[in-house]
């Protein structure tokens, strides 16, 4: 185990601080991708660190510290969404990705339609897509963090990608042909 983590587990404040400082940008950027809101991302990063301090005795060093942080952050965000039922408030969600869009524009970056499509997905679909296709975690790992089976994760990711494709109008011709074939039968 990393000596820094060992010291943190023994109660060393400085070791904890160094670990957090090292992983902070990675954590905030992950949260920005799933929340689509830099302000909420920073707020959740602090909540994640607080939970990490309370649960450090549970960290066994089998996975990377950053991976462990991601699992805590994922749960913190899902819990927050459940509490506030933010996903049901369509207007609120739309405003959420607008904030990220504004950040893109202020940096003169071209806004990506795929992110907009991702932002329209419900949280329990958006999070596994980011974890699987951007960070490369396995279905089993994601399932364990989200407390669902790996099969459920797989189907959510699959349906989510289909929704993104529809939004981006990718493969509409093929789908159209399928429909035509079905109707002529």
């Amino acid at each position: 185990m990393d000596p820094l983590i060992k010291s943190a587990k023994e109660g060393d404040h400085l070791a904890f601080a160094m670990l957090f400082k090292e992983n902070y940008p990675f954590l905030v950027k992950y949260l920005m991708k799933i929340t689509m809101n830099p302000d909420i991302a920073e707020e959740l990063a602090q909540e994640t660190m607080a939970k990490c301090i309370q649960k450090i005795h549970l960290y066994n060093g089998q996975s990377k510290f950053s991976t462990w942080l991601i699992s805590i952050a994922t749960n913190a965000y899902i819990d927050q969404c459940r509490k506030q039922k933010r996903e049901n408030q369509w207007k609120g969600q739309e405003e959420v990705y607008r904030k990220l869009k504004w950040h893109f524009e202020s940096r003169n970056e071209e806004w990506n339609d795929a992110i907009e499509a991702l932002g329209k997905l419900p949280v329990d679909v958006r999070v596994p897509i980011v974890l699987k296709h951007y960070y490369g975690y396995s279905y089993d790992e994601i399932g364990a963090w989200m407390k669902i089976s790996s099969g459920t994760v797989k189907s959510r990711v699959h349906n989510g990608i289909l929704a993104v494709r529809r939004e981006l109008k990718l493969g509409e011709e093929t789908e159209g042909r399928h429909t035509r074939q079905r109707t002529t039968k």
Partner: protein
Amino acid sequence: MKKQKVVILDNEQQNKHDLDAIHKLQEGLSKVDQFPVYTPDLQWFENMVITEKENSRKKLRKELSLFLTIALFILSGIIVSFYQMPIVFLFIQIITTIFIVFYTVTGFRRKVKINE
């Protein structure tokens, strides 16, 4: 045979579209990684750790004292009812058992509903 070939080609096409969508997502998300994130200094993190540890210690003390007070209250009630009013004691035992069973079943059902 011909039909099978058409299906395989269509599947390949679908997979290609999936990969295109994934690629576009990755492209967009990688831009988020290029955003500058303000990282506070080491002192800030250290202060946060100290404050958080202090808060959780306070919370633990508060919860423990609340737990002990309630436990003491319930236990004294049960002991008094056991010696003074055995029927009330029996009634409390039955009600508690029913409540625990009801609470567990409801909680389990809610969990299944959420996972669906």
